[in-house]
């Protein structure tokens, strides 16, 4: 497919901006741009066709089933898209004086309150703009907490071997070292291994609850008690909140810090990789360290509060992703308590239904009640067929592949998360497709080995992309001038 740099356009571009209504002022010659600016001048119809064409090469949730484990690819309600396009929300500068931005401040304040309630914890910051950003902010809070207590030996973070990659990465960016704790044969944290790892050099543990196998830590209270008894704190990665929304709260499980992924659990769109939002909730001992500014209420009006001398500072240029937060607010308002409860109910029901129907066609390493997602293994596929081949063959059936090769503790994993917004007819079709693919692996493996056959491109050479990185289009001197 062509890039905009290869588009030939004979029509005139322009017409977006008016002519100047003020005099011309010379720019200082020494500062003026002399370097090339090889950006093509295209007409609007050319641009419209180009990006419309590109969009059709994608598969989104609105195109078909998207069971990408750990990502919660639920339907994005269109109301949420409309409300955040109101000029009253988009056309406000972040440094607007508060009396002119009361609606925006109210949204942030009210959403914080709702997230506090969902978490069952003391306070919330909406500043982090991604889950990993929330993790990083949480690690900063841990660092501040122990710094002020003089416990500078606490430089280690424990995490289970099933942890998502952002967890150890976030700990490392915040200056901690990481120690893995093994999972036992049930897929949960091995309590003996945990005991052995806990000492006064441990700042805390980072847990995903339920874990990345889709299994709920049944001994979660013991885990958090042990960590607290050893003087550490507990960080919960909330990527899997969809599994217990409206039924349980991380604050009741012993969490000290909990991050939300608004673009997972709270339906804000994934956008092709972002923007998302990763607000954090904290327990009482950490409240004073949250980033500034806070959004507070004085009587009937809302304002920013910068007076938090023990705060870690800021992690964003302003208040986080306001327009993402606004979508989540609309979502929660529509659902209410009953709706939130129904989310986890249907998410878990759908996942268990699929697990039950697929475990005969594929290997299921942990055959037990799962939460909102479960993990199959492609290790025993016949004829040299791999998990990767299964994923590529699913594309031919119009289904986005599940997450593959994660978590690392399952060999050749396939992580499947249907979410609650899929109906029985979609689930049944998926089961049929997966069973068909399992049969194809046995009887006609080339269908998988050479898949996809029906996608906009055939299987891509990722080795070449990695060996000889070509990250920009090779513009030459004559382009676009």
């Amino acid at each position: 497919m062509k890039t905009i740099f290869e588009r030939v356009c004979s029509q005139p571009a322009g017409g977006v901006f008016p002519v100047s209504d003020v005099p011309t002022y010379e720019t200082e010659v020494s500062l003026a741009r002399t370097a090339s600016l090889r950006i093509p001048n295209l007409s609007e119809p050319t641009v419209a066709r180009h990006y419309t064409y590109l969009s059709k090469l994608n598969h989104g949730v609105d195109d078909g089933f998207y069971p990408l484990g750990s990502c919660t690819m639920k339907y994005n309600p269109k109301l949420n898209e409309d409300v955040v396009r109101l000029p009253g929300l988009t056309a406000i500068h972040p440094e607007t004086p508060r009396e002119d931005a009361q609606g925006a401040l109210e949204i942030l304040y009210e959403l914080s309150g709702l997230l506090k309630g969902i978490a069952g914890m003391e306070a919330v910051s909406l500043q982090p703009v991604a889950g990993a950003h929330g993790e990083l902010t949480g690690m900063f809070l841990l660092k501040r907490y122990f710094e002020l207590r003089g416990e500078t030996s606490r430089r280690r973070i424990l995490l289970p071997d099933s942890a998502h990659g952002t967890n150890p990465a976030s700990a490392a960016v915040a200056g901690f070292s990481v120690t893995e704790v093994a999972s036992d044969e049930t897929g949960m944290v091995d309590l003996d291994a945990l005991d052995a790892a806990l000492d006064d050099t441990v700042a805390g543990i980072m847990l995903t609850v339920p874990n990345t196998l889709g299994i709920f830590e049944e001994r979660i209270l013991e885990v958090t008690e042990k960590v607290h008894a050893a003087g550490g704190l507990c960080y919960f990665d909330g990527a899997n909140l969809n599994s217990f929304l409206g039924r349980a709260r991380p604050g009741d499980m012993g969490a000290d810090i909990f991050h939300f992924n608004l673009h997972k659990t709270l339906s804000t769109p994934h956008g092709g990789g972002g923007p998302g939002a990763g607000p954090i909730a904290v327990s009482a001992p950490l409240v004073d360290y949250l980033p500034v500014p806070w959004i507070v209420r004085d009587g009937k009006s809302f304002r920013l509060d910068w007076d938090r001398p023990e705060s870690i500072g800021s992690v964003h240029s302003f208040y986080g992703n306001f327009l993402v937060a606004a979508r989540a607010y609309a979502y929660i308002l529509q659902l209410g308590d009953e709706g939130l409860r129904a989310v986890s109910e249907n998410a878990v029901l759908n996942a268990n239904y699929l697990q039950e129907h697929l475990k005969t066609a594929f290997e299921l390493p942990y055959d037990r009640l799962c939460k909102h997602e479960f993990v199959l293994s492609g290790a025993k596929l016949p004829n040299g067929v791999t998990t990767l081949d299964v994923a590529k063959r699913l594309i031919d059936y119009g289904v986005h592949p599940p997450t593959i090769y994660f978590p690392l503790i399952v060999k050749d994993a396939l992580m499947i998360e249907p979410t609650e917004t899929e109906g029985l007819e979609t689930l049944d079709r998926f089961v049929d497709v997966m069973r068909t693919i399992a049969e194809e692996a046995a009887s006609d493996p080339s269908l998988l080995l050479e898949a996809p056959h029906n996608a906009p491109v055939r299987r891509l050479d990722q080795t070449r992309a990695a060996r000889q990185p070509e990250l920009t289009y090779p513009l030459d001197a004559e382009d676009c001038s």
Partner: protein
Amino acid sequence: MLEAIGLSSLDDLFRDIPEAVRSRFEPLGIPGRSEQEVAGEFAALASANAASTKASLLGGGVYDHYSPSIIGHMLSRTEFYTAYTPYQPEISQGTLSVMFEFQTLIAELTGMEIANASMYDGATSLAEAMLMASRIRRNTKIAVSKSLLPAYRRVLDTYAWAADLELCEVPFDTAGRLDLSGMPEDPAVLIVQSPNAFGVIESLAGVKDQLGDTLLIVSTYPMSLGLIEPPGALGADIVTGEGQSLGLPMGFGGPLLGLFATKKAYLRQMPGRVAGRTVDSEGATGYAMAAQTREQHIRRERATSNICTNSALCALAATVYLATVGADGLRHVARLNHDKAHYLAEKLCELDGYDLAFDAPFFNEFVVRVPGDPEGLRQMLDQAGFLVGGSEDLASLGVPNALRFAVTESRTREELDRVVRLLGGVR
């Protein structure tokens, strides 16, 4: 369905959650509402933001620019916005093609060799660049220009504290520009923002030559690069910036668009996702994520960053913006910003008691010393329908009794004349 799983009630689905936890649950105490009711609620919230009906002259990293209509339409295509990270490239060629175009455009605009597919915002991009430079040079001393936007400096302070880096401030001179004579000895990197917190364009020519082994990071304002020499042509090792000016709404500060560009030699140290060009099994051109081994999903605690979700849809907006306005349009709109700002500055300085705080060249933002209390003037203008500010930021940088004005293509000459008349009428 329950029968198929062998369970008798929906509650059985949650028996693995300890009873002690389930029994402590408390609902929020809110009913569900219809779509129509929530739409009404939001209409009320939106109308409680008087700012959206006023003319903004606010700046400080986010600006009231005009966004061409086509952007909203392309962003509303569900194939773009309901998709996720392109882990399966064969059905993500839309997302990956846009990433490739975006990377090319940002590299071209900034004068650098490579760029990533976005980060969170200009401030965190700058913080990540600081961490990267420290890693490359294996040196924890960081020289940072005092005239950074306070919002950016706050984020740098937080990230530097966490990574045990030492920030050393380099002062600005009376013209509002970096004073290199105040450099500390042998830092890993010098961090400069241009235009800076005062709107002043730094004089970067020759700076890199004076730095020896010290790296140079420049945080930039991309629209200004339609008019002024990009940091890449002036020796920058890493260029970061805020991409909001490329077609994004102000959105009360988020989502924004972090830009990050650097040299090919530093690819392995660069944070963030990148798309690379390759071929499929039939030799057709396609795109896939490249250099993934830098990233968290593979390197984990040894990754160049923990970033996963970025600002992809905002990068799409910026790509469509640049494709729509083109080089000619970008030069034109940059010129409009520049000239309108200079027009306002000139007229304001004709008023008694008003003068430019700094002599140096600026793009679309400048600082004016005002007679009397800036807060009083701000309120008066607010009531008349104009939003201005910056006085607290400026006071914190040692410039009291001042206001900062940002003028974009969205402000008409009539509006600017009116601002001058209003201020001129104050006694």
